[in-house]
């Protein structure tokens, strides 16, 4: 049997020529199309911006402590503040909704009365407010010990004005929580 014969064929390159002038025009066309597309998409919007000057007011609170042996023992009094909520809570977990409430600094202990003032409060209604006691280390260990009761607990903060509210606190007869539903 005759031995196999191997041939090698030459390689031929194929080139696709493009007329230089038409390519240059297309080059510019591509560039300008891209620029116009980008400008059209950007628009005049500048994105996020500072909020409009907030309409704010002040809450001024008068607190009276009532009842004999009023104050709880120290191991159950971890914090005490005035809290105003823009909603009516249904669970202690609602205390996480920090964006929907304002609160004062820590109140004084073992006094017969106290005052609190909260400034730069965004105007609007508050539906449930009062003095809250933190009775444990858990972040949810809070309970109301006195509520704003006038006008069913609802008051309004108006721009540039001070709203006065009163709270009577009795640690031994705190209001029920969660509040009864209407």
């Amino acid at each position: 049997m005759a031995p196999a014969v191997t041939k090698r064929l030459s390689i031929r390159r194929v080139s696709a020529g493009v007329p230089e002038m038409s390519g240059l025009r297309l080059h510019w066309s591509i560039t300008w199309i891209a620029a116009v597309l980008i400008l059209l998409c950007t628009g005049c919007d500048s994105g996020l911006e500072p909020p409009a000057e907030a309409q704010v007011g002040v809450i001024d609170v008068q607190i009276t402590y009532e009842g004999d042996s009023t104050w709880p023992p120290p191991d159950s009094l971890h914090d005490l503040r005035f809290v105003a909520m823009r909603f009516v809570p249904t669970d202690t977990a609602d205390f996480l909704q920090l964006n929907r409430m304002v609160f004062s600094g820590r109140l004084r202990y073992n006094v017969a009365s106290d005052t609190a003032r909260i400034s730069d409060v965004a105007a609007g209604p508050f539906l449930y407010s009062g003095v809250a006691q933190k009775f444990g280390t858990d972040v949810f260990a809070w309970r109301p010990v006195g509520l704003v009761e006038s006008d069913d607990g609802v008051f309004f903060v108006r721009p540039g004005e001070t709203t006065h509210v009163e709270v009577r606190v009795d640690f031994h007869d705190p209001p029920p929580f969660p509040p009864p539903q209407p």
Partner: protein
Amino acid sequence: MYAFIMIQRYVNRGRRDVNRGQQEVNRGQRVVIRGQRVVNRAAFARICLVVAGCTTLALLSPSASFGQTGVIAGTVSDTSGAPLPGVNVAILESSRGAASRADGTYRIDDVPVGRHTIVASAVGFERTTRTVEISEGEDVRVDFVLREIAIQSGELVVTASRRERLTGGVAASVSTVTPEQISSRNAVALDDALRYVSGVQMAGNQINVRGSSGFSYNTGSRVLLLLDGSPMLRPDVNGIPYDAIPMSQVRRIEVLKGPGSALYGGGALGGVINVITRDYPDRPETAVDVFGGAYQPVRYEAWRSRWEDGDRPQPMAGISVGHARPLGKRSGVWTHVAYRYDAGHLRLDTRRNLQVFSKITAGLFGDARLRVLGGWTRRTSDNFLFWNGLEDPLNPGRIDFGREAGSSGSDDNLINELSLLPSYVDAVGSELLITARGRIFGVIIQPLDEEGNPRPISRGTTGLRYGGELQADYSPSSSRTITLGAIADANAASSSFFEEAGDISQPEIGGFFQWEESGIPGLTVAAGARFDAYRIRAGQVTSKLSPKLSASYALNDRMIVRGAFAEGFRVPSVLERFVSSTTYLPLVSNIDLRPETSRSYEVGLRAFPLLSGLSTTVDGAAFWSDYWELIEPTFVPAERAFQFVNLTRARIRGVEITGTITHPNERSTLQLGYTYLDARDLTMDRPLVFRSSHLLQLGATATFSGVRLGADFRYASRPDRVDSDFATFVKDAEKMVAIRVLDLRIGRTFGRLDATIHLKNALDYYYVERPAILAPPRHVILQLSTRL
């Protein structure tokens, strides 16, 4: 032929017998009978003659294999000399042909003698023909050099099928990022490079591929990161370490859009990102890249006034030096050192990053090759967790739960990350390729005190991911490849935030299989599956089988259609299962978390239309993905705490269109990518949170008289839903707008020095990529690069 001659002789003898018989008829009946016998013999002979003739003609047909054939063999390569696998080489007007192998060789046997026209064709390349003359028993060598007709289609990608394939023949949506794109955009970290990929959206430091991820505080990435094929997710949170990638040594980044668990296992729920580093050059080279710039102060006085440095530009700078050289005929090394400082555009947002990487490649016996990639990254960062509201976004916020010292929105850490990735590759004959990979990835996180000193490791987090895999690619023919593999990985982490003390381990084993057939010209079908088993805790194992099926068909040289089905899954990270803390928010563990799963369908079309001589690529895809048991952090009233829970059944469907137009002389390029997403939370029947419906990327480059111009535009529509538990206690966390970011650049080469000026966020547009953190405003960067 011999039979034919013998039959003819028999016929002639019969004729003579007939004559003799006639002459003997007068001698009596026995003579007559004898004559009749002769006549019969002649008739039989004539019948035999006809049959023999037909048989001879049949035997002499082209399909005959009686030594009248030859062989055509050779190689197929591109214009740079690189072999091209998967190219169809066929004989016109016949069913004979072959597909080129991984090394570019092909062979067609049993080619009949004569003149033939053979054609080499592949999507994205010029169809090339040759005419050959075959003689009996001859081997003819024909080598093809194919010219690309579209840049994108000529790319080789590995992620879609765990071995190199041309992009056009892959039945999946794969995007690639080239070193030129990384360098031209000054992408110094991985997330910088991924922002410009169509269908990809960054939610802070979380990658969102086609809406698969949303935002989950970088705990549990739904996109798997590979570095040279090895998983690179942080062992504690399964998040992506964006700063632990040597970007200047990247050869290619591949983004596989869609579930990839059938080949890569857990973590590839929404996609796979494979960062492939280079080997070494032909000659020694040293590369030096330097950049410096600053963030422009924000234009709103109301914001600037709340930060003492608000009126000053905040600086950033960096340098990377890399040296690469061959060490022998098949060996080489590169080393890369980089340092980066970023003062940040926010208060308490400073970062310092030091990175050292090296890779050595050694040619061993035969075709065997050993590669070892190792690196160390050290990073100090002031972690800005959330802002102080839209009225004061430059300062960290506070969460005050009624304690004197509230919880700050910043967290400072020192992070050390170490990686070691050895791999061994060997070709056993021309049909079998063996790959073995090992990996070690460790992380140490230490909180910083008020003076910036690291606290003890016991107050932080440590984690280690280690393991290996073995893969065999068997190609018994040019049209079939069978891939088999096995993996074993362990994942241990320890943290002061975990409920359980000591190391928590989550080992896994798995096996994968894939069968690829391309016997019919233009058609490639692949089917496979992967089985994974994870040990969640002592005595408890979870397992998952992830199948895949895909097909692609080249309608002609300029159009290919594809279809794919795949399933994916993600096992909850150690942090999601075991985190327990009351430091900032009440967090409780959930050790019974179940894996997230997904199922995805996709059809697509890739075309290379000729447009007035320009090089064009258009790709369109429609996809539908279903998700089950998606894990979300949410407040659980019964626990009085936040917890990671299996919450959501979701569906994400959409379409994606990408296109590239390139001038033949590459003086200008236009890229476009648009993605539409319909992302739905089926549990609550509402839009999925933090998913944009419309994503658009536009990119353009042009060169005029040596001056390089470039522009990139990114758009993402405002998510349809932005509410979350996070927004109940972080001020203005629900404030999100559409993203419109324009980046511009201009550059020129002066001798060996490349200089580029970048104007990032040129329109000074203010937005957030993730809730409650303002994204960078306009900033300017000068970039200088040289190659020695």
